[in-house]
């Protein structure tokens, strides 16, 4: 570990800068906040300040306490201790509703929409316009939604059900909902982790308009490049403590990372060259009626095939079909020279495939269950069973060392996954699949919500797996990640493959051209 001295200097400087601001202009001021959960100190003496008309980024490793602090600001959690001032006045929030009434709205890290209700119903819940009989006036509600979506230039039908929308569309609904409260403070907890670059720039336009209207926006992200683009100030947290705050104009990337992690890390881990072996997976004319068609490609042992494309391009659908979640209508899947009819995940797993899904809340985590139960679920087969009984000791050890490798931050393996921070949940899921020792690893947004340090760690891990002869298919909306890690890059648009680029010929421009064609 490095000495902590440099950060202290920065922190002190920032402190000075912050205190020179006249108190009255502060929208939010938090000091000395402490929050504990059983077995965990999530926040310890945390402080934070937000000025109106600014975008304030909040950064820190997974489990640093960012979401927890924001939940305190939004009335979800009560702090054990600390001062919270809103426009210079001390307040105590009793509930999220209370927070909304004080003008604080939050978009949570995990989506909170009701799947079988329409976009309009989700946005106006609890505030539905009523007609003279006191019944919900759906016509007006849809009209209001249309108006709101038009202002934000979001292209969605107010009447479509949430369940039918993609994750990114759902995220846009959450954003529209939060904006509809017209609050002075808008908290966004990793809003872009489910969005592609195109939608990210759309979101940034919305944020800039809100900022111009004098609102204060708190923006949590793990993406460094977003800082300079959207944020005015950035506050860094580590282990539940305030580390420092600075203007983004004077921002040094490495500085921020060092403040977050407390040690030197490389931000992006380029793939190590691996021995390319035989064809592990060959896909020909794969079609799922109405979703994607005629997808053909192959991946070799030791190779990482990056998959890029906009939301709706069918990337995730292809992955689901490869793994048998939604079996193909036609086309063939050949695994190590043998054609296989993959019509269920079990068949795929029997072929040595593993699949990390894009939506950890819906198709990934068992939130109710422990880290252990979550990690072990896919390896409860032959080798770890005797007459149906699980060899719990062996599996405990496997999971223990896997969570150590992935640096899962939790009080123990028996902690419920629901209590983990978003990034740590993601690590648990990655662990689940790595335990299966896959031959073919399909990853859909593997580093979604993962902090910089751990991201490099996961990249190193993926690279090492490729080095050991695993064939990797990696879908990612982060172009630098795709470019850094892939041997070849397949680009999709509108359910078709628009090109497969070699590492040497691929760059941001060539990919975006194929993706937006």
């Amino acid at each position: 570990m490095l000495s902590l001295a440099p950060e202290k200097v920065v922190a002190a400087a920032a402190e000075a800068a912050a205190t020179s601001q006249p108190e009255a202009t502060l929208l939010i001021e938090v000091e000395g906040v402490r929050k504990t959960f059983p077995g965990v100190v999530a926040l310890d003496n945390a402080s934070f300040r937000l000025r109106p008309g600014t975008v304030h980024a909040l950064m820190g490793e997974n489990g640093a306490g960012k979401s927890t602090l924001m939940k305190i600001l939004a009335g979800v959690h009560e702090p054990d201790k600390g001062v919270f001032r809103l426009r210079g006045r001390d307040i105590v929030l009793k509930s999220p509703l209370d927070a909304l009434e004080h003008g604080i709205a939050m978009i949570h890290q995990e989506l909170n929409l009701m799947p079988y209700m329409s976009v309009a119903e989700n946005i106006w819940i609890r505030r539905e316009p009523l007609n003279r009989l006191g019944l919900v006036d759906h016509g007006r509600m849809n009209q209001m939604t249309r108006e709101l979506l038009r202002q934000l230039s979001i292209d969605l039908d107010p009447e479509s059900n949430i369940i039918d929308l993609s994750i990114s569309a759902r995220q846009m609904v959450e954003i529209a909902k939060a904006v509809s409260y017209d609050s002075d403070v808008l908290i966004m907890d990793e809003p872009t982790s489910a969005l592609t670059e195109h939608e990210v720039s759309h979101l940034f336009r919305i944020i800039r308009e809100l900022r111009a209207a004098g609102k204060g926006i708190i923006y949590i992200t793990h993406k460094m490049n977003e800082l300079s683009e959207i944020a005015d100030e950035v506050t860094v947290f580590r282990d539940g403590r305030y580390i420092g705050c600075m203007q983004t104009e004077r921002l040094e990337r490495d500085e921020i990372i060092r403040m977050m992690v407390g040690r030197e890390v490389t931000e992006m881990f380029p793939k190590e060259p691996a021995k390319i072996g035989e064809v592990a997976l060959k896909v020909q004319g794969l079609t799922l009626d109405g979703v994607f068609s005629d997808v053909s490609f192959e991946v070799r042992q030791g190779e990482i095939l990056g998959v890029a494309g906009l939301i709706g391009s069918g990337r995730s659908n292809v992955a689901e079909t490869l793994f048998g979640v939604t079996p193909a209508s036609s086309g063939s899947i050949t695994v190590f020279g043998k054609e296989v009819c993959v019509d269920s995940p079990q068949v795929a797993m029997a072929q040595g495939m593993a699949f990390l899904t894009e939506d950890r809340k819906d198709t990934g985590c068992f939130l109710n269950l422990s880290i252990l139960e979550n990690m072990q679920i896919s390896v409860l087969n032959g080798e770890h069973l005797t007459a149906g009984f699980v060899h719990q000791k062996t599996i405990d050890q496997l999971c223990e060392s896997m969570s150590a490798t992935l640096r899962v931050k939790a009080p123990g393996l028996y902690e419920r996954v629901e209590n983990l921070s978003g990034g740590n949940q993601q690590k648990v899921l990655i662990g689940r699949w790595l335990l299966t020792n896959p031959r073919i690893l399909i990853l859909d947004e593997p580093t979604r919500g993962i902090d910089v340090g751990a991201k490099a760690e996961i990249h190193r891990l993926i690279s090492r797996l490729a080095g050991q002869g695993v064939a990797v298919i990696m879908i990612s909306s982060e172009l630098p990640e795709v470019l850094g890690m892939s041997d070849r890059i397949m680009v999709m648009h509108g359910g078709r493959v628009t090109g497969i680029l070699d590492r040497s010929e691929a760059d941001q421009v060539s990919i975006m051209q194929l993706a937006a064609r």
Partner: protein
Amino acid sequence: MAIANTGTIDKLDKGPLSKFRIPAEARIFMVLLGVALIFEILGWFLVGQSFLANKERLLVMILQVSVIGIIAVGVTQIIIMGGIDLSSGSVVALTAMVSASLAQTSEFGRAVFPSLTDLPMVVPLLSGLVVGLACGLLNGFVIAKTAIPPFIATLGVMVTARGLAKWYTEGEPISMLSDSYAEIGSGITPVLIFLGVAALFHVILSYTRYGKYTYAIGANRAAARVSGINVARHLVVVYAVAGLLSGLAGVVTSARAVSGQAGMGMMYELDAIAAAVIGGTSLNGGLGKITGTVIGVLILGVVTSGFTFLRIDAYYQEIVKGVIIVVAVVADQYRQRHRRS
């Protein structure tokens, strides 16, 4: 807008050491003790004798709820898996009828199957289990292969099985059963069967793959599927096992009454679900323990025999039972909400 004049909230500073959490079962056990204690005190005041210091009474109490207990074990695993089973009471009736009809003695002139009398005890026992298993399989297949929710599917089987039980002898009760068959329901055998089944399923749910899959499906069905669990097959198996246990309960019921009647097991499904819920199994799935269910069953037993002991009308007994169930569900919701925030 309520703005408090002080923003400093100083609460008990729970550090990282406050790791210790009371297990849910311990809490439910306290409830059991509390309820028993209330009857003990009321007993001294109202009838002048002890409720608990009476072996006979305690045995009868457990005997009364053993059958519910056997069903509740099967139902608990279904609820953990995120399902529900309304058919168990009717399955008890149907199996009681079928197995009783095969357990009759030849001394009886009007046996259901005059040519099938004086059979060894295993025949009615096994046929009872098979009937239960078949009902469970039916539940499972309908739920796994169609989009019909478990509530409706098992409601259908509930009505159908009850109808079949009545149709079987056109409503006539079946009596004159062999002594060896009656043995299954005599003395403390039902209690032993209940505790044996509970112990077995406690082990199965905690330590086997079957158990892990059951919890996983209940916690998140879509994730379970993507994790490589054959969800449809597991659903069928779990419902089948529950059916088997209902069948066993039917055999015990008819053996204990030394007869088969189409009205047997009425509302047992609700008592079984209540026992599971009182015992801390969440109707949302993914959460629950057999140990909790056993305590839940005992709570129902204490309430039932407590009222009899106090010689209070059965109406009150039902009212109190209803209140306890609602309180248990509210407690569950409360726990769920607290976990989320």
